[in-house]
């Protein structure tokens, strides 16, 4: 009997077969690590420090834009000639889901601000908080697509965040180190997956595979 749910899940998983989504996501995290590192090198209240604070949203948006462009380019060059072209549906989040995300985000933001207000030394926990929050996000993705390596990445995020905090590296420097290390872990996971994918999937002879 055909297991419909398994086929649907496998189809979603196929997007991650080549490791390219992880590589592009890893590059975003590395860029964020670089951004926070630049903040640590800039003198407090200097022009560079102010400019970096203002540019934060721009850095996030352009990193996301660049990563999606790179992903599309690499998919076109590497994946489609080997395992075929597929375009996934772009799901607009439902209003309930959007509201839930905003509420959760608001609660986390408010709790962080409140704790920081009560004790400024709380900021030494920022790397651990980042690590745990991203661990939950990656865990949700892992649960949805059912790929073992994403569970490992989720655990890696939590471990790196907690380890950086325990090492007492500091708040911004710690966040920079967390994003650098987690970005490297995600990129390496993607590269390893890509190598396996390239070995298993030679370029298809299009002339002989395309027909109806």
């Amino acid at each position, binding site marked *: 009997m*055909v297991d*419909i749910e398994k*086929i*649907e899940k*496998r*189809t*979603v998983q*196929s997007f991650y077969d080549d490791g390219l989504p992880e590589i592009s996501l890893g590059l975003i995290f590395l860029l964020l690590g670089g951004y926070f590192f630049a903040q640590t090198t800039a003198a407090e209240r200097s022009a560079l420090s102010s400019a970096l604070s203002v540019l934060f949203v721009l850095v996030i948006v352009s990193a996301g834009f660049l990563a999606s462009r790179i992903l599309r380019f690499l998919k076109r060059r590497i994946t*489609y000639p080997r*395992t*075929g*072209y*597929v*375009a*996934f*549906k*772009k799901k607009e989040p439902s209003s309930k889901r959007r509201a839930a995300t905003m509420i959760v985000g608001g609660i986390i933001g408010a709790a962080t601000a409140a704790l920081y207000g009560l004790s400024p030394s709380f900021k030494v926990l920022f790397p651990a908080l980042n690590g745990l929050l991203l661990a939950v996000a990656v865990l949700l993705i892992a649960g949805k697509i059912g790929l073992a390596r994403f569970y490992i990445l989720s655990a890696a995020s939590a471990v790196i965040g907690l380890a950086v905090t325990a090492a007492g590296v500091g708040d911004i420097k710690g966040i920079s180190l967390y994003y650098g290390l987690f970005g490297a872990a995600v990129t390496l996971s993607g590269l390893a997956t890509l190598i396996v994918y390239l070995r298993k999937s030679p370029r*298809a002879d*299009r*002339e*002989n*595979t*395309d*027909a*109806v």
Partner: protein
Amino acid sequence: MPSDLRILPDINRLIHEPARLALAAILSVVESADFLYLQRETGLTKGNLSSHLAKLEEAGYVAIEKTYRGRIPLTLVRLTDAGTAAYRAYRSRFKKFLEKTG
């Protein structure tokens, strides 16, 4: 006929066929996919895939667009609205049937 089995005659036999069901399941998740992707994911031969897609197209369940990417021919397949409705109906009916029969 036992009540559990009464929904069986209503099962869409065109989609019920395993290869076509697999194709519909894949296409239900994606916007569109090309021939090579469908062939690799289903493990069907080129001839079999062509024949099943032709049947689905005849029923108006899939739309097939022949195009080119550069000089490379590309056959894009997508589930139509009728195909999506038929697949969803099949999926929910069959799920109910499985739940009833255990």
